[in-house]
């Protein structure tokens, strides 16, 4: 490299390295180090796996962990199933102006904070809420119904909150599918279902993977929606982390929990990428 380009290179790589090293890499290493130390006295620590032991010995922790993972996977699948037909409509059925308007309409709910979205569902679902009132008014039920504070409510909120992150990648990949390919498949005798399975879904695969990864991640790490819609017994893993860090001030155990969450999300993201033959650069970049 010439000196000039060399100086340019150093100037450009410095912010990147500062950001990644100081805010991502070292903090995570430090979190891991904290998670493998045990308090044996005042300001006295020794390294041990005791915190992970606590995690694996306490059924409540394991149960919450497994439950969070399964519900996140389920929420991702539901989001995908709901979003796919709508995205397909926006990308392939709607044309011109309608298309851009519909796409924008999809984005609107996500320009506002997650807390507002969750609040909307609370107003709808609570005992004195709209859905309950409508049900009473139509005579389907005779008294107020509480629809908050259960798993369905959590699921509704999670799916709603994640929708955008599924719709955007799906619309983008589906838009790039040439209409003529679908027509050709049709002319060759493909039925709707076989075209979907053999042409459309393979083409949309990068979008499906990208959307699913982001939605899964956001759901797994969500704190607000499970707490607000699920109430005290929502048993979401992030709540345990919050509890240890902020309420109990047991950072060692909290860090171990955080590390378990990170491990879980990394394993799942990695295996989804491997199974579908995608790479992080291709799906995210």
């Amino acid at each position, binding site marked *: 490299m010439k000196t000039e380009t060399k100086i340019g290179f150093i100037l450009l790589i410095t912010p990147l390295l500062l950001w990644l090293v100081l805010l991502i890499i070292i903090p995570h290493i430090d979190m891991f180090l904290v998670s493998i130390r045990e308090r044996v006295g005042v300001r006295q620590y020794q390294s041990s796996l005791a915190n992970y032991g606590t995690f694996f010995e306490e059924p409540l922790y394991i149960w919450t962990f497994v439950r969070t993972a399964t519900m996140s996977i389920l929420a991702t699948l539901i989001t995908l199933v709901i979003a796919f037909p709508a995205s397909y409509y926006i990308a392939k059925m709607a044309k011109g102006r309608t298309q851009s308007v519909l796409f924008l309409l999809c984005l609107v709910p996500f320009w506002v*904070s997650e*807390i507002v979205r969750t609040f909307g569902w609370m107003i709808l679902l609570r005992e004195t809420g709209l859905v309950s009132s409508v049900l009473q008014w139509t005579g389907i039920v005779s008294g107020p119904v509480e629809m908050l504070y259960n798993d369905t409510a959590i699921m509704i909120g999670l799916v709603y909150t994640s929708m955008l992150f599924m719709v955007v990648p799906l619309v983008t990949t589906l838009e790039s599918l040439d209409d003529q390919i679908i027509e050709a498949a049709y002319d060759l005798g493909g039925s709707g279902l076989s075209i979907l399975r053999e042409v459309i879904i393979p083409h949309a695969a990068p979008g499906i993977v990208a959307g699913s990864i982001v939605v899964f991640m956001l759901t797994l790490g969500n704190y607000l929606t499970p707490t607000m819609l699920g109430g005290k017994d929502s048993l979401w893993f992030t709540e345990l982390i919050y509890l240890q860090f902020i309420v109990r001030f047991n950072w060692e155990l909290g860090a171990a929990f955080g590390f378990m969450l990170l491990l879980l999300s990394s394993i799942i993201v990695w295996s989804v990428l491997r199974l579908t033959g995608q790479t*992080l650069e291709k799906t995210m970049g």
Partner: protein
Amino acid sequence: MIPSIPQSRFVRFIYTAYVVLFFVYLAVPLIVVAIFAFNDSQFPSLPWEGFTLAWFFGDARPIIGIFHERTILSSILTSTIVGVSVSILSVAVGTTNAFLFNRYQFPGRGFLYVLMLLPLVVPGIVLGISILVFSSTIANAVWSGFSLELETLRPGLGLVVLGQFSFIATIATLVISARLQKFDQTLEDAALNLGADRLTAVRTITLPYLAPAMIGAGVVAFLMSFENFNTTLMLVGSDAPLTITMFDRMKEGSTPILNAVSLLLMVGSSLLALMMILVQRRS
């Protein structure tokens, strides 16, 4: 499956109905929030007690509107300050990153690129606690080494800005890179041939070309920061940004003032987003 392929009317009807329902589903929670901002009642729920603007302008008990509610106003200010800082930082680092990845081939480039993407697949709460743990480690070390208390490394707005920046920078990088990739580099070469030095060429040719993407990334960064909850929750000190204040209020039981704040948020962010689209369309 596409308009040019014949479909039975029934299938077409079902499909359209599904899409309509989908948009209703997206809209209903927000509409409900907006409507109850005008309910003359202590609770954001039925029965409807009549239309009022008191949750915006009211200045006496029992209804104190947002424009007279100190805590909420100051947390909006806090969120704005945090949002602007995150936005400036992210666009700056995003731009240098975009140039780095587009213009230079160097060993470890692919590795750094993947590393740069990673913050998107780390749960926000983990980003939050890892930064909290690390900053406390440094602050404690400084304290026991030099008896110096580094206030900025304790939970507070500084850490909130860093925590949000740690993943919003990735998004800014991706947005700005996407536009820089489409840039015709011969334009810069032409400027160099005409006697400009490299810095002048970048400043007068490339940066103006990148401006829409930088503005776009800035707006997105601001909105993401403004609505961030998870990372902020772990790093917040005594000055709470708006989402944290609203969360605390909601736990205590909500009054329609939250609806009023939400409505303002919706209007504000829609205007910002509209502005961004106009800027991008003009270019």
